[in-house]
């Protein structure tokens, strides 16, 4: 059935909400082939219909051309939706994972998507630096109103050295507890390195 591969692409995204499945070159190729094929057929039939009408005979291809056209439109829509929704997901990932993606997600990106991600990342960084006169504002922290300057956190992984913004170094070890400025912790909490402890 026409439009089947295109729809599989979209279903693939639907099944994998909240994550990015590998960029499906193979299916995209199939959809592109189907589109090109339909267009070529339409062009040929259109040409033939013209010739026939000059002679005053021949089949009416209007219905065929219209039907193929509807299929082309559908295929285009699915292709565009596939790429668009992947970018939206990628954008959210910048906010959730930070500027460095886990390697097993990174391999799933197409070349163009990788480029887009680094450009988005650096644009966001430039923008955040440009706010105010004071070296900028980090928009990725304080997503909820802060209650206290310092919070207690538990480290969930052996992270190694971590540099605080005042230049001092902390060695982060698994299952150790730390009492740190909230602003310094928030990124690491979002990335799952720290767990926020509440008494």
């Amino acid at each position: 059935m026409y439009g089947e591969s295109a729809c599989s692409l979209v279903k693939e995204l639907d099944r994998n909400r909240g994550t990015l499945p590998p960029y499906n070159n193979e299916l995209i190729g199939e959809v592109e082939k189907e589109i090109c094929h339909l267009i070529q057929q339409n062009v040929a039939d259109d040409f033939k219909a013209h010739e026939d009408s000059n002679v005053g005979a021949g089949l009416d291809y209007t219905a065929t051309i219209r039907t193929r056209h509807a299929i082309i439109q559908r295929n285009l829509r699915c292709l565009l939706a596939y790429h668009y929704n992947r970018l939206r997901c990628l954008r959210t990932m910048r906010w959730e994972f930070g500027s460095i993606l886990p390697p097993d997600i990174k391999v799933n990106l197409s070349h163009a998507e990788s480029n887009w991600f680094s450009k988005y990342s650096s644009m966001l960084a430039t923008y955040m630096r440009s706010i105010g006169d004071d070296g900028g504002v980090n928009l990725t922290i304080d997503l909820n109103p802060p209650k206290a300057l310092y919070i207690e956190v538990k480290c969930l992984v052996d992270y190694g050295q971590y540099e605080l913004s005042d230049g001092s170094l902390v060695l982060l070890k698994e299952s150790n507890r730390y009492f740190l400025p909230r602003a310094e912790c928030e990124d690491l909490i979002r990335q799952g390195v720290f767990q926020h402890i509440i008494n």
Partner: protein
Amino acid sequence: MSLCYSYTPNYFSIEDILVTQERIPSKFLVNVPKLGKLNPSAEENDIKQGTALDLPFWLADPLSFARHPLISIELPRVYKEAYREILKADATAVDLHKLGLYFYELGLYVKRLDPRREVEAILLHTFRSRFKELMDFADDVVCDPVKQNRLDMFERTLFQKAHFSRMQLKSWLNNSEMRLEAATMVINHKKRKRIDVDDLF
């Protein structure tokens, strides 16, 4: 990032693409040469006038809704009188998921086929009478998968959003301070990784 909009389909919407993949009874009004492939049960090259097929809505819609329609389409079974009567009697008792994954969304598309607007009325009636249950259900801390399975896809989205915000409120009421959490995608990513590792052993 927490901005949250109601569902309105747009060109890129995954939901809408899946909704329009649903099939609908169609009948060809004209011959369509060369496109016999549309009919999987016949080997012919052309589609003959009068052929009846279940076409996906994305194809049926543009071919039927035009100045010179190529096909005529019919209401899918679940929006016809027999089913309307069942829904009218007690919409809360119906397993909507079984009637159609996208009962409301497809209903919105096909209601124009019913000039007496009974389909519209039944959509409204169904949604309104099932609403209270959905609202109560969103308040339960543990969600019963059996109940959730009886919702159509739209109700499911609505339920999940409502449930999430109710749980946020509950935990605000019960805790003195809210915990900062890891990002949703990060949590899911970790879970998935754990599953992958489990598969290895």
